[in-house]
């Protein structure tokens, strides 16, 4: 789905406003609809409200106020008139639409046995527009390949610093083949449809020609399923942390597969402080660590270390 087609998913009124605004969709990052609140965009990294005439303004009062009908109609389109088909995703508060765009929703949670069964009376929608950045791993990839073989790699990054974007591009490049490294079969466990952005099981982002994606599957279970069924050479997962994830990682490594994973953290110190991960660090299980930071822009590589902590790359900070 082209970005322009993303606009078709909005209610007639909102769609017309967005069309009048003639936006450069490559610069649109988020579109937020909240009942009774102004239509809001994150455009070129800045927050704007949109008037009924399609003008981007800073003043909330002059902007178009979202009606309950807008949200209802938008949800009908986003859910293909079949919200039941997205029950599992909705339980987590989001669904992925064609094009890999993430639609987050909020409303009244429906509970069953103290667990969230679904969401009703949806009143807030946040569309996060997918922007695949091909080539963002170019700089870091040579450090992750040693003697033509891919190394067990852990990407360390705080939220919104671009770890999933980097992970996706590494997956694409090692799958297609990059530099000395021939194309590898990559198995991706995409628990939240963030990496491949699957829609009806088909990856909407380019994740490479030798990549198999297990969409919306719990990481630990998914890793074992991939090992049993798809014979991957590399298993890629996003945001590891739970004890079952770590156990599954060890099983994957014991099977002779390489690991490419991400974890939340600001530095290597943060990783060492995580009780479950620290053991893997001490045992030098990972051969490469890539630390990302959000400045000067999301996805900036701060440093690359090898398994023993030796610095292979460090970004020079200019005063």
């Amino acid at each position, binding site marked *: 789905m082209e970005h322009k087609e993303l606009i078709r998913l909005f209610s007639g009124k909102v769609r017309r406003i967005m069309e009048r605004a003639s936006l450069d969709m490559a610069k649109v990052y988020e579109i937020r609809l909240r009942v009774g609140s102004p239509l809001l965009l994150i455009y070129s990294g800045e927050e704007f409200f949109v008037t009924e005439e399609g003008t981007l303004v800073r003043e909330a009062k002059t902007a178009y106020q979202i009606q309950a009908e807008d949200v209802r109609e938008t949800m*009908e389109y986003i859910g293909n*008139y079949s919200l*039941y088909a997205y029950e599992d995703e909705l339980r987590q508060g989001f669904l992925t639409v064609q094009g890999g765009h993430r639609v987050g929703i909020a409303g009244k949670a429906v509970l069953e046995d103290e667990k969230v069964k679904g969401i009703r009376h949806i009143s807030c929608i946040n569309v996060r527009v997918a922007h695949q950045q091909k080539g963002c791993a170019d700089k870091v990839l040579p450090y992750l390949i040693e003697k033509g073989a891919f190394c067990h790699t852990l990407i360390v990054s705080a939220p919104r610093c671009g770890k999933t974007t980097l992970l996706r591009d590494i997956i694409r490049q090692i799958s297609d083949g990059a530099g000395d490294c021939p194309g590898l079969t990559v198995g991706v466990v995409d628990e939240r449809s963030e990496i491949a952005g699957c829609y009806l099981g088909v990856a909407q982002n380019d994740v490479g020609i030798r990549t198999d994606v297990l969409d919306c599957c719990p990481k630990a279970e998914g890793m074992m399923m991939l090992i049993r069924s798809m014979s991957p050479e590399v298993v890629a997962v996003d945001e590891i942390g739970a004890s079952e994830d770590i156990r599954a990682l060890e099983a994957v490594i014991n099977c002779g597969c390489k690991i490419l994973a991400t974890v939340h953290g600001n530095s290597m110190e943060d990783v060492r402080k995580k009780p479950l991960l620290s053991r893997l660090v001490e045992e030098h299980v990972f051969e490469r660590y890539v630390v990302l930071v959000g400045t000067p822009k999301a996805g900036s590589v701060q440093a690359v270390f090898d398994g023993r902590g030796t610095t292979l790359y460090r970004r020079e900070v200019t005063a």
Partner: protein
Amino acid sequence: MIRAAALLLVAASCAGLGFVKSQALSARIRDLLILRKILRLLTGEISYGGTPLPEAFYRIGGKVGEPFRDFLQDLSLDMRRYEGESFSELFDRNADCHLKGTRLTREDLEEWKEFGRMLGYLDREMQLSTLKSFDETLAWKIGEQKEGLPARKKLYQSLGVMGGLFLVIVFA
């Protein structure tokens, strides 16, 4: 001579009318059975894969004949246009457009549209119970229609022939 030919034509027409009417009884059952087939396929699509309605309708459309195929596939395409109509409006419009020519009665069509208004609403469990409930309604209707069908078919055919003979006697 012409009079005899006209009387013969009247008798044949009446007998033919009775025959057509008797055939319509079977045709309605056939159409109701197609609706049941659609329901079963839809149940499979929803319960196994949680397939969204537009995709399920298009796929099922490929497994049934005209005019049900056109109904399902056009409905599926309309649903992907996102032109501001609700699902029940799209369902009603396509049912009126494509299913008017079937042997389904006005009451059958109204019930079918009512069923359409319930689809897509709430969770998967709700879809399956809606499908099951309408399937039971159809099963009951078909059972009722089948009961005494040969006798009713014979009745229509006999009435056609007898009516024709009656008119021949009256005009002779």
